C-alpha cells in the first residue's frame, strides 16, 4: 500500500500548510455561499417543524398505536450510522497504521460529530414530554427516582452521549497543531488571540508531541471499541424487545456493518464535493476514493448477508410470528421499502467489482447517494415491522405526515449547515498528519532534500 504515493505532485511542507490553511484564511468560493443558503434554509425548516412539534405534541406525526416509533427513530438510527465511518477512519485505520487515512480523517471526524448531533436531536424531540427528558440522567432528584439501567434507551443515552463527547475530543486533539499553524500564520491580532487560545499554546516540541501522540493513540484505542459498541447498543433498542422481526441476535453485528457502510457512503459524498470545490484532488486522491469504494462493497455484502440470514433464521426458528414478520416485510403493505433497501444496499455496491466504475467520480457519487437512501430504508423497514405484531386486532398502517418529512429534511439542513461552517473555519485536512506521511518526513532519508 505504501508504494503508491499518498499525496500527488510531491508537495513541500510549506505548500501543504499553504493549500490547507488558505481555505480558512481566504474568502470561500461562490458555490460555498449557494450551498450554505440552501443548508440554512433546511435548518430553518427544522426549527419550524420542531417548534410546532413542541407546541402541539407528537401527535402531529404519523405515529400511532401500534407503531409508536416513526421517522424520528428511523432518522436517529440513520444518522448515528452515518457517524460511524468518521470514527472508523480516524481510530481503527489509525491503529491499523493505514496511513492513507490522513487525507480524509479530519472531515470524516467532523462528519461524525455533526451526524451524531443530528442523531441525538431525534430521541430528544420524539418523546411526549420534552421538558422532562433530563430524567434520563441518574441525578438524585426530589422524586428520589432513578433511571432504569435495564432500558436500551438509557443505554443509548450513555453510549451515544459518550460517543459524541469522545468524537469531539478526538477531533479537537487532532486539530491542535493545525490551529497552531493558523495562529502562526495569522495576520490580525484578533485571529492571533482566538487561534492562540484554541491552540493552547502549542509549540510543536517533541516533549509535547510524545504526550500528544500517546493521548491520540489512547483516544483511538478507546474509540475503536466504543464505535463498535455504539451501534450495537442502538440495535438493542430493537433486539432486546420481544417483537417479531426485532427480537434477534443478528442485529448488533449487522447494524455495525450497516453503519460503516452508510458512513463511508456519506464520506464519499462529502469528499467528492469538497475536493472539487477546494481543488484538493492532489491530497484526496483517487487512491483514497477507491479504498473507500472497496470498503463499501465489503460492508454492503455484509448487510446483504444479514438480510438473507434474517430470513433464513425466521424460517428455521419455526416461530410463526417471526416468519410472518419477514414475509410481511417483503410482500406486505411495505414491500416497496423492502425492495428499495435490497436494491440500494445489495445490488448497487456490486458495481464496485469493476475497477473502471469504482474509479469514476460520477459513479462513486451516485452510488454513495443511493447507498444512503438504501440504508435509510433499512431502518424504515425495521421500524414499520411494528405495524403487525402478535394480535391481529391491533394491526395498523403507519404513514408519515408532512411534519415527519419536514423534520427529516430539516435534519439534513442542520447537518450541512454545520459541515459548511466547518469547511469555512476549520482546516478540513489534518496538515500535520499529511506532512508526516510525506517522503521527506522520514528522518532516516538522509538525502531527504526538496
Amino acid at each position: 500500500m505504501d508504494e503508491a504515493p499518498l499525496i500527488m505532485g510531491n508537495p513541500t511542507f510549506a505548500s501543504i500548510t499553504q493549500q490547507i490553511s488558505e481555505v480558512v484564511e481566504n474568502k470561500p468560493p461562490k458555490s460555498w455561499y449557494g450551498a450554505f443558503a440552501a443548508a440554512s434554509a433546511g435548518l430553518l425548516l427544522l426549527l419550524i417543524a420542531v417548534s410546532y412539534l413542541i407546541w402541539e405534541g407528537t401527535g402531529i406525526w404519523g405515529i400511532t398505536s401500534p407503531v409508536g416509533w416513526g421517522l424520528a427513530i428511523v432518522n436517529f438510527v440513520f444518522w448515528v450510522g452515518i457517524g460511524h465511518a468518521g470514527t472508523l477512519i480516524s481510530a481503527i485505520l489509525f491503529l491499523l497504521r493505514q496511513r492513507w487515512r490522513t487525507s480524509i480523517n479530519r472531515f470524516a471526524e467532523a462528519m461524525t460529530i455533526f451526524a451524531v448531533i443530528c442523531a441525538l436531536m431525534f430521541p430528544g424531540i420524539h418523546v411526549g414530554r420534552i421538558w422532562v427528558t433530563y430524567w434520563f440522567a441518574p441525578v438524585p432528584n426530589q422524586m428520589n427516582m432513578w433511571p432504569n439501567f435495564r432500558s436500551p434507551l438509557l443505554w443509548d443515552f450513555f453510549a451515544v452521549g459518550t460517543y459524541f463527547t469522545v468524537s469531539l475530543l478526538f477531533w479537537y486533539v487532532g486539530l491542535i497543531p493545525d490551529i497552531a499553524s493558523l495562529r502562526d500564520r495569522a495576520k490580525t491580532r484578533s485571529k492571533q488571540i482566538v487561534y492562540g487560545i484554541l491552540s493552547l499554546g502549542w509549540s510543536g516540541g517533541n516533549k509535547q508531541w510524545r504526550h500528544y501522540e500517546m493521548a491520540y493513540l489512547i483516544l483511538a484505542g478507546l474509540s475503536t471499541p466504543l464505535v463498535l459498541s455504539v451501534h450495537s447498543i442502538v440495535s438493542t433498542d430493537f433486539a432486546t424487545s420481544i417483537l417479531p422481526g426485532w427480537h434477534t441476535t443478528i442485529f448488533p453485528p449487522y447494524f455495525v456493518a450497516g453503519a460503516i457502510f452508510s458512513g463511508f457512503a456519506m464520506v464519499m459524498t462529502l469528499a467528492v464535493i469538497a475536493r472539487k470545490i477546494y481543488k484538493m484532488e492532489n491530497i484526496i486522491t483517487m487512491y483514497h476514493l477507491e479504498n473507500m469504494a472497496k470498503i463499501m462493497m465489503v460492508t454492503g455484502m455484509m448487510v446483504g448477508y444479514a438480510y438473507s440470514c434474517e430470513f433464513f433464521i425466521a424460517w428455521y426458528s419455526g416461530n410463526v410470528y417471526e416468519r410472518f414478520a419477514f414475509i410481511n416485510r417483503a410482500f406486505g403493505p411495505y414491500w416497496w421499502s423492502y425492495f428499495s433497501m435490497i436494491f440500494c444496499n445489495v445490488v448497487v455496491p456490486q458495481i464496485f467489482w469493476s475497477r473502471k466504475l469504482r474509479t469514476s467520480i460520477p459513479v462513486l457519487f451516485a452510488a454513495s447517494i443511493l447507498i444512503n437512501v438504501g440504508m435509510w430504508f433499512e431502518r424504515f423497514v425495521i421500524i414499520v415491522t411494528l405495524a403487525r405484531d402478535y394480535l391481529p386486532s391491533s394491526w395498523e398502517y403507519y404513514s408519515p405526515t408532512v411534519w415527519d418529512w419536514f423534520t427529516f429534511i430539516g435534519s439534513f439542513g442542520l447537518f450541512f449547515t454545520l459541515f459548511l461552517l466547518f469547511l469555512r473555519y476549520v482546516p478540513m485536512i489534518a496538515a500535520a498528519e499529511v506532512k508526516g506521511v510525506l517522503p521527506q518526513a522520514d528522518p532516516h532519508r538522509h538525502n531527504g532534500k526538496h
Partner: protein
Amino acid sequence: MSETKQVAAAGPSIVLAEFDGAAALFSAAEKLRDAGYREFDCHSPFPIHGMDRAMGIKRSPLAFIVFACAFSAVFFMIWLTYYVGAVDYKLVISGKPFFSYQAYAPPIFAMGVLTGAITAVLGMMALNRLPRLHHSLFRSKNFERVTTDGFFVSVQSDDPQYDEARVKAFLASIGGKNVEVLGDE
C-alpha cells in the same frame, strides 16, 4: 510578534537554533543527547518517529493515568447501578433481578470509555503544561514557521550544563542556523 517582545520574560531564557529538515533535526537531537544536555527540545511541524530515543527521554506515562481513571469510573458505575437497583429503589421490573448486571454492562462500559477519553485529553494538557497563552519561544519571529516547515532545537537555561556561549557554539557546530537567544534581556 513585536508586542510580545516587551512582555517580561516568562520562565528561563532559551537558545534557539533552526535545522533544515527532519533528518537534520534528528541527528542534532542525538548529538545534544550525547553531549549530555537534558533540558532541550526539538520542535517540528509533525511528530518525528524515534525522536524520543534520539533525545533520550522516556515514554509518556499518560497511559497509566488514563487506565487508573477509566477503571475507577467503571467501578463507580457498577456501584451506582447496584445501589440504584438493589439498595435505594428496589423495583420489580419485568420480573428481572434487582441487580441485573447483564443489562447494566452497556452504561458501565460507556462511562469507562468516557472517563478514559476525558482523562486522556486533560492528562495530555497537564503533562504538556497546556493551555498556556505565552511561551518564550514565541518571541522568535523565525519560530513561527515551526508549525509550517520549520525544524528547531531549543536549549533552556535551566539545563545543568547550560552556558549561553557554549550552547550557541555547540548548536552552530552541529548545523544549527540563525541561532538566537530568547528570554530576559
